[in-house]
């Protein structure tokens, strides 16, 4: 029953996201063509000849009634037809799926690292509450978390890419490189991954760190921690067997949901490092005014986030015995 409500809710959310995507270009004041043909950065109209305008008009199906446009749009999405990219002159779906693997690699790796590291540091901080180590960690994490990811990314490029020259500063692989072995290829990919992933990790770590620290502080004040101590358990055993799991449970969902939103952060990091993922694609779509591509990328990013949230929501139900055994 509970599952069913949740699933319905998520279907509704997907529906809303798709509808927003449908409505936006059509909702603009005046003729959508006019607003579409304004350059977003300067607000100046872009000179377009009548042919192209006509093409766009029929692309969006603006000559048909709105309900028909909507059903057509839904059908296309079900068929995985996200439209035609103006800039790449290729199907949007194709362009996006080509890039998706890089984003998943980048976001996946960073997520794994920042969550484990953040949770660990948060637990340590709470355990050492009020001591110098706690305050030091707290201030460092809050400070690094205050860096916009694109700014930190730019600083990293200058420091590690240009000044120290130890990491490549753009792309996911070395261009035109012939790999002599899979290991070589792996090394090259890893090498390109380190700076963008570090940026994402450092700018996102404050989330799980603070959540864990707060949750853990609450747990450490609970009576069952006193019980554990009364049994004669060592401090480490108490931390490991009694505190961490209890502190993690209530924050799993929140942490997992942030995981979904990590992909948003990838938009900036990929842009700065010219990492060929879907975030960079979104940026390019904005700067080239490639609206079908932009909407496609938006839709896919949104769907990924919603899917991640859904999984997060569901795992909680299976983790906490109090929920599971009701």
């Amino acid at each position, binding site marked *: 029953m509970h599952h069913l409500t949740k699933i319905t809710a998520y279907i509704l959310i997907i529906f809303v996201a798709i509808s927003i995507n449908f409505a936006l270009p059509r909702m603009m004041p005046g003729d959508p063509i006019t607003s579409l043909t304004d350059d977003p950065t300067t607000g100046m109209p872009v000179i377009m000849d009548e042919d192209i305008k006509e093409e766009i008009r029929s692309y969006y199906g603006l000559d048909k009634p709105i309900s028909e446009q909507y059903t057509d749009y839904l059908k296309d999405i079900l068929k995985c037809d996200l439209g035609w990219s103006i800039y790449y002159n290729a199907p949007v779906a194709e362009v996006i799926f080509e890039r998706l693997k890089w984003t998943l690699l980048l976001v996946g790796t960073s997520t794994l690292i920042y969550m484990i590291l953040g949770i660990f540091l948060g637990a340590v901080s709470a355990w050492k509450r009020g001591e110098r180590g706690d305050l030091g960690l707290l201030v460092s994490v809050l400070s690094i978390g205050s860096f916009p990811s694109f700014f930190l990314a730019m600083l990293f490029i200058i420091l590690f890419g240009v000044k120290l020259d130890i990491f490549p500063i753009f792309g996911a692989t070395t261009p035109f490189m012939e790999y002599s072995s899979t290991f070589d290829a792996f090394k090259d990919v890893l090498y390109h991954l380190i700076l963008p992933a570090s940026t994402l990790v450092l700018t996102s770590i404050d989330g799980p760190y603070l959540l864990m620290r707060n949750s853990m502080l609450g747990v450490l*004040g609970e009576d069952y921690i006193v019980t554990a101590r009364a049994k004669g358990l060592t401090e480490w055993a108490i931390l490991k067997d009694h505190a961490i799991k209890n502190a993690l449970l209530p924050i799993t969902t929140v942490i997992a949901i942030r995981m979904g939103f990590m992909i948003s952060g990838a938009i900036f990091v990929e842009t700065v490092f010219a990492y060929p993922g879907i975030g960079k694609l979104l940026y390019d779509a*904005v700067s080239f005014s490639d609206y079908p591509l932009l909407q496609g990328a938006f839709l896919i990013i949104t769907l990924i*986030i919603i899917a991640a949230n859904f999984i997060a929501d569901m795992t909680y139900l299976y983790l906490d015995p109090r929920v599971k055994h009701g």
Partner: protein
Amino acid sequence: MRGALKSGNVFCKNRIGVTGLGILSVFILTAIFAPFLAPYDPCEMFEPMAPPDSQHVLGTNDIGQDIWSELIYASRISLFIAFTTSIIATFIGTLSGLFSGYYERFGFFVMRVVDLFLALPRLPLIIILAVFMPTSIWNLIIIFVLFGWPITTRIIRSEVLTLRTRPYIDSERMMGAGDLYILGRHILPNIFPLVVVQFVMEARHVILAEAGLSFLGLGDPTSKSWGMMLHYAFEYPTIFISEVWKWWMLPPGLCIVVVILALVFVGFALEEILNPRLRREIV
């Protein structure tokens, strides 16, 4: 000994808050008195790409504008957007939170809307809205408010729900006190500290979001913020390999970092003081 450590601790936390507040004040004053502090009109053009000298402390950008003046004026834009958004979003969130916590049916309806907003990914939506809406500061503010209020609503509502069950509220009601009287007299003062925390958190969020949007080139080009300065710096072909980043990229970036950090400090100190659970001693 440990007692001394504890009071030192409290002091230190206050010091974090005080530091944050101090930094914020400097930036707010800079924003207010920008015309007096900036040596030039930020739109005035000089020789482009001039390195720092006595004329231009931070040199000039690719179209010859004085970066130092630009930076000072940009604080106006960034802070204006952040604070205006926060004020409106916190206001809407507080009111809707108050009423939806107090009136159950209304609350149920509002919370479904809130759930929907919170489940939708904020940043991609903001980006796509910013692309399709004509760019102006006010449109940006509208977009940020749109996605800013729901979290405040949720937090305020759950607080009101707990407050509503307090016995003195019941006895007031029994004595014939009106809903508005109870809300204004008893509930609002109790949630006010929470509202302040929310305001600070929201401001922090907007500073970051605005900088991000502007960095992507989606800000208002007629009123440059720090994020927009970074956008132009980033687009400049040799930004990383020449020395210009030192005066063109570093200052606006650091301004963003410092303001966010100040807001985080203030918010953190407020939360520690207000949240008794966090203050509870560990046995």
